[in-house]
């Protein structure tokens, strides 16, 4: 009885951690959507904005190093903004932000290099603003480089208001915090009262972001891949079967080497990449929603009409959450992490297994 209770506690703990992480990442994407909205829909800001890139590549100071990938690059008529959004403070933020400060330029859509103008600004957003000591260390490092342009730290948070939910942006009140250069976007961020963007407004842009530019957490990748990408792997035969019967008569088999071919989804600005899909599949395998078949070198996925996910009775899920697919996936993952963890050694040997000749029907082998 005690061990059962201990296992349940562990499940709840894992679930709580992964759910918090998932929610925080979701809010980051909502913040990106809000910024995307104001950059294109607020008349004066849109008029001033010449280029917005939410998958930018900026040059490193050392030509031999990899390009940096902040979350956004906004080129306005008067200023170049480099944007990075964080959930909460991490010591690694300091060197990352310094690199963005040192970056001499960025890559244009046509592949050419473009130098930053002197009027540059680094925008660093946090859901949980850093404490005073961490801000001190950040600005000590920033000021030691004597950059001739500002670092502006702001917070973003999702708030409930009587008229609906909204994403709220406000510059952090800290004496050494920078002020944005003269520009309309800067004016909004410098506003002492901050500014909100209602969910009703930014929802139009919300579906365009499946991740922030340089990373996605595994749980979010799993949910978004399961809900948005998986159906695009269906062959024509399988699509017609889904249209006719609402389910496939056999599992979809996604071969290991096919994972790198990500379906292109219309109107998605920042889609998942191959590494994200691998992480998603690993997470789904841990949740026992996908099984890795080492003899086939492939992932097998059961696809049904509603792709119904059963959560075991002792899962850490309340009735109120019961219809939420993200909650279901996370709950299954937490339970299986404690009660039936995936044997990693088998998964590794699966990579070797992919060299074997598949023995199944070739039509089935192409996808799920």
């Amino acid at each position, binding site marked *: 009885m005690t061990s059962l209770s201990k296992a349940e506690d562990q499940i709840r703990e894992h679930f709580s951690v992964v759910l918090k992480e998932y929610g925080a990442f*979701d809010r980051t994407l909502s913040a990106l959507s809000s910024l995307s909205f*104001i950059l294109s*829909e*607020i*008349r*004066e*800001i849109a008029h001033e904005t010449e280029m917005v890139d939410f998958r930018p590549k900026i040059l490193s100071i050392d030509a031999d190093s990899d390009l940096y990938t902040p979350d956004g690059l906004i080129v306005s008529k008067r200023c170049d903004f480099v944007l990075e959004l964080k959930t909460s403070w991490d010591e690694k933020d300091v060197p990352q932000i310094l690199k963005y400060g040192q970056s001499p330029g960025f890559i244009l859509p046509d592949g050419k290099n473009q130098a930053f103008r002197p009027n540059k600004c680094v925008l660093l957003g946090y859901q949980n603003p850093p404490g005073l000591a961490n801000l001190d260390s950040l600005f000590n490092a920033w000021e030691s480089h004597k950059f001739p342009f500002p670092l502006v730290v702001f917070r973003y948070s*999702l708030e*409930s208001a009587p*008229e*609906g*939910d909204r994403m709220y942006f406000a510059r952090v009140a800290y004496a050494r915090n920078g002020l944005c250069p003269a520009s*309309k976007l800067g*004016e*909004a961020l410098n*506003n002492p*009262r901050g*500014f*909100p*963007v*209602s*969910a*009703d*407004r930014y*929802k*139009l842009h*919300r*579906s365009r972001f499946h991740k922030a530019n340089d990373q996605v957490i595994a749980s979010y990748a799993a*949910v978004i891949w*399961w*809900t*948005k990408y998986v*159906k695009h792997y269906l062959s*024509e*035969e399988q*699509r*017609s*079967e*889904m*249209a*006719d019967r*609402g*389910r496939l*008569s*056999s599992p979809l088999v996604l071969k290991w080497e096919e994972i790198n071919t990500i379906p292109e*989804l*219309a*109107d998605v600005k920042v889609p998942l990449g191959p590494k994200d899909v691998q992480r998603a599949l690993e997470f789904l395998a841990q949740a026992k929603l996908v099984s890795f078949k080492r003899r086939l070198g492939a992932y097998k996925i059961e696809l*049904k*009409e*509603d*792709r*119904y996910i059963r959560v075991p009775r002792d899962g850490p899920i309340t009735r109120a959450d019961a*219809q*939420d*697919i*993200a909650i279901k996936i996370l709950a299954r993952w937490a339970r299986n992490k404690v009660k039936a963890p995936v044997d990693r050694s088998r998964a590794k040997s699966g990579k070797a297994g992919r060299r074997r000749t598949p023995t199944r*029907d070739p039509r*089935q082998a192409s996808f799920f």
Partner: protein
Amino acid sequence: MSILDEFRAWLEGRSEEESFFSGTFWLLFSRLPEVEFHRALELNAVSVSPIPAVARSTTSTVYMRTGNSVRATFAELPVHRDNFRILFSLDKPAQALRPMYRLLTRTRGRVSLFPLGAPLVKACARLVPGQPLEETQVLRGVSYPTRPSYGGADINLRPGNASVFFARLREDRRVLKTAKLRAPTGKSSFCEFTVGRAGYITYHKGTLGPLLDLVASELPKKLSDSVRPFEKAGGRFVEFRFEEPLFVDRTNYSVVVDALSHLPRTSLALLHTNPYFHAALTNYEDGSEFDIFITGHSTISIQGREEASPASFLRIQNGLTEQFRDASVSLERPAEFGMQDLLDGQV
């Protein structure tokens, strides 16, 4: 004698020769110009057709995993209004549906079946204007008591008069799949036909004229009108606005989920309900994808992905109107905001 009169006479003749005859009219929606439409469906010219009025046809074959195959031939009828077109087949709809979906899959959403919700099926039950609905008999009705995957087989409702049938359907909130009807066409004549929710009408026997009029002229107008709000959607949101603030209480979200889950051949993923409602819906019938949001108290906002068909929007509307009444449908107006609105917290 017009070309459709020739077709009518031929079809009536065929139905008399066979005891269980099926001639199915497939109601299609497509914004493609004629040439592109023919190319997308691989409708090839036929030099000599056994069916009058038919100049083009195509055959679709589906190979099953068992090794068997199902095949159906679809012929284009010369009926075209706005974005409405008709294909005709001589196979039973249950056998031809899968090849039809196979055919439509090739077009990647550019051609789709027009869904026939219960109100349109009801409209089909009256072939002669002014004829009481009570005089139309429902010979067989198949409806979903709930999602088919929730363990329930399709339920055959007891045959009866159409008025009682549709009233009961509404009361029980069932989703109608097919209804086989016997509608009077004169004092002593009738027409027997089946209407399928997926988007087809199958003629079995009797006087074809009024049914053909319905299929060739009345129905195209009704269907064209019904999708007009959705044709201009593009990537914009279609808003279903209710008079009452239904979503102040977030427990009502579950009713929306129920309504959307009720749609056959769809998958619904509720991404989250907190802080606002966001769901992703795929309709496998034509591959359309939607994001569904509830961010206010009285509006459901639906955004179709690029290739989302108006017919698929119509399926969602049918699903929602079975659960909620009095929703006005409109396209979200592009918002215009200035800097002061942003700083005043009005965005």
